[in-house]
């Protein structure tokens, strides 16, 4: 499988970035971590906008930079798209000219493969082409910025909190486009975000950074459920499963989902049978029991095996579980944990009280 390997060491005043990463060159890799953890700097290194002391960057078998051989593609020669936190559209050009900016320069060197019509349609910006950036809403600006980045036929798309400057409504306007773009264009994406919402919705692969170092890097599920990481230790810890729609209970508006570990029913509008979905479950919405519940809703009680137990601050315990082929987190009080006498490998019943469908 083709990959993306990078290694950078860069000292800037009191901060040091020291990273080595192997990422799949397919799907969306979300980079997350607290402010000042070096996420943006990492992206800038990949784009060639910084001069690291030690640098290695290989994208799909092509080496962009190798400081040991004193080789480095200039930033303007790297076939990538970069979407900045603020759209950074050129104010003296209209939307069409902004999109054409990189495209024209690309044509000097090669033949752009696909037409831009798909991208413009996908991002729904066809009606904005003649407008000046100053006359666009925040969401429209970011969509144009994404189109502009895609117009250079990138081999890699770098996105630095592209939705951070938008309000919630505009975020929901763009998120579905991002997922579709990824499917339609088969383009690897590195995506920085602070938002757990964007992370769980978009990520295939998750990278966690702290103080200029990589804390963890792996499949979304695996990183989310690692008990030694801050993600699982937070109050809003959650896990994500992939499931398929198999029925709809119209009377109660319950969507029936099937996955390797059993069946879930979630209140939702009807969706076509066979749709693959991502479901996010907050750890605090999962309770554990030793016996199957005698409740009237047997669907959401899953047979689970305990993988790990970690005591958290102030009276809580987080438990990681295997349910079929999926991983799940549960957060229970320490008292409950002690009462259940949880131990590794133990079989328990995980009751899912709430789950959110991520479109």
């Amino acid at each position, binding site marked *: 499988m083709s990959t993306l390997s990078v290694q950078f060491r860069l000292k800037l005043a009191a901060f040091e970035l020291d990273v080595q990463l192997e990422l799949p060159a397919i799907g969306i890799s979300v980079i997350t971590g607290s402010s000042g953890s070096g996420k943006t700097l990492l992206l800038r290194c990949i784009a060639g906008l910084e001069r690291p002391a030690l640098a290695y960057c290989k994208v799909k078998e092509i080496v962009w930079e190798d400081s040991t051989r004193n080789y480095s593609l200039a930033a*303007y020669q790297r076939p*990538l798209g970069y979407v900045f936190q603020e759209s950074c559209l050129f*104010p*003296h050009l209209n939307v069409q000219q902004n999109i054409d900016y*990189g495209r024209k320069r690309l044509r000097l060197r090669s033949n752009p493969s696909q037409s831009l019509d798909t991208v413009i349609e996908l991002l729904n910006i066809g009606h904005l082409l003649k407008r000046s950036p100053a006359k666009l809403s925040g969401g429209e600006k970011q969509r144009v910025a994404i189109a502009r980045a895609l117009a250079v036929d990138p081999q890699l798309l770098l996105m630095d909190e592209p939705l951070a400057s938008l309000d919630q409504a505009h975020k929901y306007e763009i998120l579905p486009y991002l997922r579709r773009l990824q499917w339609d264009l088969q383009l690897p994406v590195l995506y920085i975000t602070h938002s757990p919402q964007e992370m769980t919705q978009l990520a295939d692969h998750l990278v966690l950074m702290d103080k200029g170092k990589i804390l963890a890097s792996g499949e979304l599920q695996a990183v989310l459920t690692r008990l030694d990481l801050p993600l699982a230790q937070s109050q809003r810890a959650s896990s994500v499963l992939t499931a398929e729609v198999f029925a709809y209970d119209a009377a109660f508006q319950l969507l029936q989902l099937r996955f390797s570990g059993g069946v879930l029913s979630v209140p939702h509008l009807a969706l076509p049978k066979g749709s693959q979905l991502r479901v996010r479950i907050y750890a605090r919405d999962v309770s554990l029991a030793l016996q199957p519940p005698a409740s009237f809703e047997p669907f959401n009680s899953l047979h689970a095996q305990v993988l790990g137990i970690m005591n958290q601050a102030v009276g809580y315990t987080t438990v990681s579980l295997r349910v079929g082929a999926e991983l799940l987190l549960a957060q229970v009080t320490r008292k409950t944990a002690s009462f259940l006498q949880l131990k590794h490998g133990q079989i328990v019943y995980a009751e899912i009280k709430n789950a959110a469908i991520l479109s």
Partner: protein
Amino acid sequence: MLSPEDWTAISLTLKLAGLTTGILLVIATPLAWHLAYTQRWWKASLNALVALPLVLPPTVLGFYLLILLGPKGWVGQSMKSIGLDTLPFSFTGLLVASVLYSLPFVVQPIQAAFSGLDRRLLEAATTLQARPLDTFFSVALPLSKHGFLTATVLGFAHTVGEFGVVLMIGGNISGETRVVSVQLYDYVESMNYQAAHSLAALLVLFAFSVLLSLYYLNRGK
């Protein structure tokens, strides 16, 4: 109202100011870019050097230029040794002096415009495959056009208004170095207030309309 002598002086002044401004735009643009973006140790010194003509009496600048460019000066001697005429009391000499004299008026507005550019826009252009020079012409320059406009107007107007430097290095040769300000001085010296009034009024009108158009054009900023 204006004598043929006056018209000669006016056209000479316009020629001097036009050439000075043209040369300055070419010199000042890279200089302003360097000053706006360099972090080297010499930045402060270079800034001070460029601003020097703002503070110095023009006669000081003229004096040193006269020494330097004169037949005994370092530049004058080397020019003589390769068979060139020395520069003092010639139009070329006046042009050199004007360029130095008006330098800060052209560099500073451009430098301010460059410093005010959003660096991220330049980086965005880079990630869109624009080479550095391409980025400069396609993004930096159009976004700094107000700075260039101000620089052009100030550089031109300030050269029209110079007097001390001209007197020191240019002298008073009709059609060669006698610009409007010197012509006016001559009139006053010879008590010809009538002629001085027309020329002075013309300069006031010129200065006012230049500044007015500048503020008008920059009003949107």
